[in-house]
């Protein structure tokens, strides 16, 4: 025997090999959790009240750890003490019942060995990629710490700096781990292995499938339930006033930053200022972290969904991929290999076809895209056949042939090919146009001649006895328009030249009160009496003017 003391060497991993391993692991989890809250000593009843699923605690911890009875627990605790995971001390606290007093009362705490073992096991599990389990714990912890924080936030007194600081610190710690893990998961989903191509990637696929399903089973399902709870807690804390809490924690951090504050209290304004700055900076940091936490669990509108929601969506699309891959695998098992390989094989078959004709046959068999091909018949032929009522044994040669348009037979075209259009001779049209222009010019000259007055005349006399000739009248209207347009207010006499420069008109108002009427073929023109002189400029040498 090498040992001289009666203390056995610690065996902190021994519990892993026992049938009761889940129980022990559950107990150690409670201790680890307590440790994170800086609770060092635990009584057996504390362990039970912190047990996952207990009324006070939050579920979602070790699902496989069945809540023990007090006796089982004490037994297990003592076993863990024996292995060196825990240390027990006499509990000197006050009791309230006789039974408690009579029982050997002890308090327990993690030993250094026990702590190292826990850390090692955690590391081990992480290395195995059991993220789902770890994150489930993280979610439970976050919820737990948030509800603790909510109590502080809703309390009337100023929050205790230390407690709040610790809570926030643990929260940050847990949350950081959770976010890291989630990020790793998301990126692993994004670079989903291309299983459609693999030869022998099935094992990788199965591993992936197990991982994904475990993840979804353990974490995403929990996230769906717990995410809402956490979001609710966050809202609750914010409604109660998060600023108070964060500032309390920041003040505590600032104390760490400038330990001398108390000693130089009020004496040194510079230090006070530095302290205020430190508090401000720390508050900002905490606000930032809080925002990160908030954005993780609370969606702000549809455009900025929470990380939790994104994770759930990613998991859902992961499932879709999984189903597709399973289908592809089944297809491959069923003798249908992937299409890319099929196309490559066909490329080889085409290359090795004896000639183009063979390639055409292969083409039709492989792609089956050939159109249907049919002869045609016209209705006349159809009628002929119908009238003939051929018995079924009639050979083609004995039946009436297709009635093909003789023109088609002769020319290869159904349409009559007409003589080309000759070049159009426009001489006649041109002559007609010239004649018309001449005639119109003559008519206008005649109108001018008719309209022109030999010296000034009264408007009422302009028309003469038979009224104005319609052509002359139209011309008159246009020159009258020009003349009236040229008249300026207060001036009784106007002179105007018609727009085409062929006529001049002089108008002089005689009496605005006398209205004269000029009968024409188109109607009666009425207006004040004027003296009118119309000169046909084309008829007289310009020099005369």
């Amino acid at each position, binding site marked *: 025997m090498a040992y001289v003391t009666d203390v056995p060497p610690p065996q902190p991993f021994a519990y892993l090999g026992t049938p009761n391993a889940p129980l022990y692991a559950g107990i150690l989890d409670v201790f680890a959790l307590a440790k994170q809250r800086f609770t060092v000593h635990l009584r057996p009843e504390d362990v039970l009240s912190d047990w996952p699923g207990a009324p006070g605690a939050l579920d979602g911890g070790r699902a496989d750890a069945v809540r023990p009875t007090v006796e089982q627990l004490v037994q297990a605790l003592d076993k863990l003490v024996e292995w060196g995971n825990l240390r027990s001390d006499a509990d000197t606290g006050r009791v309230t019942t006789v039974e408690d007093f009579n029982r050997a009362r002890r308090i327990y705490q993690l030993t250094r060995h026990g702590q190292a073992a826990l850390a090692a096991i955690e590391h081990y599990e992480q290395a195995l990629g059991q993220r789902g389990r770890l994150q489930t714990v993280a979610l439970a912890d976050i919820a737990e710490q948030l509800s603790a924080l909510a109590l502080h936030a809703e309390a009337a007194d100023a929050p205790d700096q230390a407690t709040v600081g610790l809570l926030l610190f643990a929260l940050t710690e847990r949350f950081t781990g959770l976010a890291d893990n989630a990020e790793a998961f998301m990126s692993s989903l994004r670079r989903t292995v291309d299983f459609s191509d693999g030869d022998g990637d099935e094992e990788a696929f199965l591993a992936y499938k197990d991982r994904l399903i475990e993840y979804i089973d353990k974490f995403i399902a929990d996230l769906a339930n717990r995410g809402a709870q956490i979001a609710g807690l966050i809202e609750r804390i914010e409604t109660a006033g998060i600023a108070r809490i964060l500032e309390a924690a920041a003040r505590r951090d600032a104390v760490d930053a400038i330990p001398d504050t108390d000693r130089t209290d009020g004496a040194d304004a510079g230090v006070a200022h530095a302290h205020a700055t430190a508090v401000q900076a720390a508050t900002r940091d905490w606000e930032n972290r809080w925002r990160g936490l908030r954005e993780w669990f609370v969606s702000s509108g549809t455009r900025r969904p929470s990380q939790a929601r994104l994770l759930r969506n990613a998991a859902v699309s992961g499932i879709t991929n999984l189903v597709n891959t399973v289908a592809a695998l089944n297809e491959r098992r069923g*003798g249908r*290999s992937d*299409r*890319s*390989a099929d196309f*490559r094989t*066909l*490329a*080889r*078959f*085409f*290359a*090795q*076809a*004896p000639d*183009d004709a063979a*390639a*055409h*046959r*292969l*083409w*039709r*068999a*492989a*792609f*089956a*895209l*050939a*159109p*249907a*091909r*049919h*002869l*045609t018949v*016209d209705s*006349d032929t*159809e009628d002929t056949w*119908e009238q003939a009522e*051929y018995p*079924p044994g*009639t*050979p*083609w*040669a004995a*039946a*009436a*042939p*297709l*009635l*093909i*348009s*003789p*023109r*088609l*037979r*002769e020319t*290869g*075209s*159904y349409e009559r*090919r007409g003589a080309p259009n000759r070049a159009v001779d426009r001489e006649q049209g041109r002559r007609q146009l010239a004649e018309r222009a001449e005639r119109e010019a003559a008519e206008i000259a005649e109108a001018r001649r008719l309209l022109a007055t030999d010296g000034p005349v009264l408007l009422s006399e302009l028309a003469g006895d038979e009224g104005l000739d319609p052509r002359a009248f139209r011309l008159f209207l246009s020159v009258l328009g020009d003349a009236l347009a040229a008249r300026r207010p207060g001036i009784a006499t106007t002179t105007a030249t018609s727009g085409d420069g062929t006529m001049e008109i002089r108008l002089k108002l005689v009496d605005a009160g006398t209205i004269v009427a000029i009968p024409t073929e188109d109607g009666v023109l009425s207006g004040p009496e004027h003296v009118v002189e119309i000169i046909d400029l084309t008829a007289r040498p310009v020099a005369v003017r």
Partner: protein
Amino acid sequence: MAFHQPSDHDVERRRAARALLASPLLTARDDDFRLVRKHAAELAGWFADQTGWRLTVDAETARLFKKPAALDDSTRPARAPKTKVPFTRRRYVLLCLALAALERSESQTTLGRLAEGVLTGAADPALAEAGITFAMERREERADLVAVVRLLLSWGVLARVQGDEEAFVADGGNDVLYDLDRQVTGGLLATSRSASTVTETAFEQRLTALAAEPVPDTDDLRLRALRHAMTRRLLDDPVVYYADLTEPERAYLANQRVAITRRITDLTGLIPEMRAEGIAMVDPDDALTDVRMPEQGTDGHVTLLIATKLATDGKAPTVPELIGFVQTQAKLHASYWRKTAVEPAAAADLAEQAVAKLEALNLVIRVLDDRGEVRIHPRSALMRYAMTDPTIKKTGTRA
């Protein structure tokens, strides 16, 4: 034959069925896609029942997997959309490599990226061994790729976003951007077996393996398979000769021809021309076909003249004889034919094209005679193009 007046529903369904028969891959861009979608259930039922063809219709595409009735038909090549020139082996290979590359590409791609993908696929030593290599450096190679891309564009696999292919042919530095529609690529292959699982090495076996369908093992299934085979032929082929069928097929068709053709008429409006030698489902609308006969224009005229000659002479001329015939006709019809066709040198091409058309329509076959010369033999249905009586000719004249 008296048909009941078709209802609007029937008319629409007929249009939809014809659209699918004429082009088994339709997308929302196509005029009759809406009708196909509307009558999808009925059409799918009909095709599954009568032909064993699968019809899939979704919001974007309609695809009729028209398994061919016969694997020996080499008259239906893929054609370059612009020039209508049949694809070469080389272009088929390019097409498959391009599709393989697209299968793995993002939802958008460029012509340059596609060319790279094709080059990667072309590294397969089996291709080089078969004498097909690509470097994408020469203009002709880029033109080949562009012909393939235009086919993909015409199917709706790709949609051009920016750029133009001509510029790429001129200079590989000019790129073109496309959207890729996976829905369409997904439904391109119509093989019964996945090509990559076909291990046969001989061409004919490969072809058979790709198109293989389960062998019917009960009388009911055998009859069903016969009905499918015969309906497929009648729906797709211009003339179905009894002589080309197996004994069970011949017996089945002789028995069931009235029932089968009536169902086809109800669906498509094609009417049967039943003769002693076979059946042709002919189209009174002269629309449901890719090779038209008779047809206007010089090429159509040459084809009609050769058909008439073959039907009337009842002889099987050699190819040089036909070329001589075309040269004679060119002199007679010089005023109607296009200028380039009147040159004596053009006669060989014209004759070859005409014979290829008649072949595609199951109206002639090429047979090697004792002296090793190819002779063009008329088949029975060619007789429907014989000269009509002069009296009928007069009444047939259109004003």
